[in-house]
């Protein structure tokens, strides 16, 4: 049974498009990233799943339960961080946590305490006095502290500094190990690439792609660039290797893209004196750009999640 399943889910705000015909399935135990530019519909999808918005058409289940009819049962089992998390400015983080704990019937606060320490969250000051990032930490705590089966997080790292983003990623991978499902939205491909098993891309309200990130990386070209100590080399021996493309050589500085087993490249390099070596995978961003702005010949046509035409 999927953790989240939507069938041709649409939400219009009057005449304004929120999301359109989204068919998506998020498996139990996976970390799923939901990517898209501002206004794409990420928050709309999440708020529809939570029954804060009612769908214009289509349906959604969360943990196998109907998003509207079983909303209370769903809320028992999820943790949610709203995209624009805010709470009464005069209340402190610990007051909010004890209220939510009371409503959830949670008495065990050790994990909340541990999380607060890890995130360096100040639970004693009124939320109105906290910086945006520090307020966001309180939001994360209230979503995480009861160890829900499913985490729905709308731009969870918004406002967090890089150190805290790292901490957050560590928490997400612990949650995955525990067996929880994580559904998070983001603008940052890099973050999704590092945390998620799969990613969906939403644009103009439509789901245009769902990709397995590991697969995407492995079937993509890597970038190889290096500098050799010798100046009288023949770049041709590299150019002629299998799987090489976009070759360029500037004296001892050589770079190309490469697909396939890396071993021949390494063997050939070992016959030279290597000064500098850089081996990178393209970022998710480059991959997606290549995939969805026309460069589709580079890979298989990705599943677009639903049967609709992929825009762009």
């Amino acid at each position: 049974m999927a953790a989240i399943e939507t069938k041709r889910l649409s939400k219009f705000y009057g005449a304004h498009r929120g999301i359109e015909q989204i068919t998506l399935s998020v498996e139990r135990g996976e970390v799923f990233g939901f990517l898209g530019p501002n206004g794409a519909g990420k928050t709309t999808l999440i708020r529809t799943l939570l029954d804060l918005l009612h769908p214009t058409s289509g349906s959604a289940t969360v943990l196998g339960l109907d998003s509207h009819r079983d909303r209370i049962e769903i809320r028992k089992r999820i943790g949610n961080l709203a995209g624009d998390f805010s709470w009464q400015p005069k209340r402190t983080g610990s007051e909010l946590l004890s209220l939510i704990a009371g409503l959830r019937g949670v008495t065990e606060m050790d994990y909340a305490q541990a999380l607060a320490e890890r995130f360096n969250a100040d639970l004693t000051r009124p939320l109105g006095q906290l910086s945006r990032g520090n307020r966001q930490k309180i939001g994360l705590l209230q979503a995480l502290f009861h160890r829900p089966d499913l985490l729905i997080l709308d731009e969870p790292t918004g406002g967090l500094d890089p150190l805290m983003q790292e901490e957050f990623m560590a928490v997400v991978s612990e949650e995955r190990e525990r067996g929880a499902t994580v559904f998070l939205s983001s603008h940052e491909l890099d973050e999704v690439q590092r945390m998620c098993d799969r990613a969906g891309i939403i644009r103009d309200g439509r789901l245009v792609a769902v990709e397995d990130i590991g697969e995407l990386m492995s079937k993509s070209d890597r970038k190889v660039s290096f500098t050799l100590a010798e100046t009288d080399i023949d770049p041709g021996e590299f150019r002629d290797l299998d799987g090489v493309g976009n070759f360029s050589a500037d004296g001892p500085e050589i770079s190309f893209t490469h697909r396939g087993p890396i071993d021949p490249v390494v063997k050939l390099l070992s016959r030279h004196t290597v000064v500098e070596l850089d081996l990178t995978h393209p970022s998710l961003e480059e991959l997606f750009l290549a995939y969805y702005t026309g460069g589709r010949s580079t890979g298989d046509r990705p599943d677009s999640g639903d049967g609709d035409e992929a825009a762009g």
Partner: protein
Amino acid sequence: MTGSPKVPILVARGLDDRKRSLLIWIVSIGAFCAAIVAIYPSIEDTLTDVMDGYPDALKEAFAVEDLNTPGQYLHAELLGLILPLALAWFAIRAIARDLPSAAENSFLDVLLSAPVSRRQLVATSFVGTAIELAAITLAAAAITRVTAMVLGVDLSLGDSVAGMINMWPLALFFAGVSILINGLRVQSALVSGLAAGLLVLMYVVDVIGRLAPDLDFLRYGSVFRYYGMAIEDGIDPASFFGVTAVAILVALAGALLFDRRDLPG
């Protein structure tokens, strides 16, 4: 509407949030009542003359016949207009802050991520407001009675409580109206605006109905028709519980509508 201890938890939190503002209301209304009682002994003898000078229509409009007793005096000065309007406004504001404003500030997104239903949020706001209204009216009754006792004004505790608590259903009715308006998709500022508009309209309709006997039937559409003068005549149970029941029904309808609408993001 409850079925779990969530509503009590939320009501307790709401009361805790507002204990300050509640205290300010109790002190201000109590001070006002005490002041009105305090001037009674000095003007008591001239009141009958004053009344004789007023045109009948005016007396009719304010539902004042005579000012022979402290009860009639307090009704004219406090309970006939100013306090019911103030308490109804208090109730309207309390609902507007708990539901539409909290929704616009995204506070409700946080509560509704926990296993809480929108109906429970509505119940919380309604019950909390009812408790606060009871606290204000009972405190006002106590302060009024104590001031009367100290100054030797003839006002029993029972009459004082009856007069004050009689405002409770009326104010609660406007809490229900605010909940109903909140169930329709309107902005938070409009919720209190429209409810206050209805409050004034209902009062005006009641005055017109009293002035023009031909239009008396209009008064049945106004909650003020069922208000009376409890400080003199005692509480009329049919009106008291009838208006309370209508307030609850209106709030229930609002809760059902609220369940069906979108929450602003």
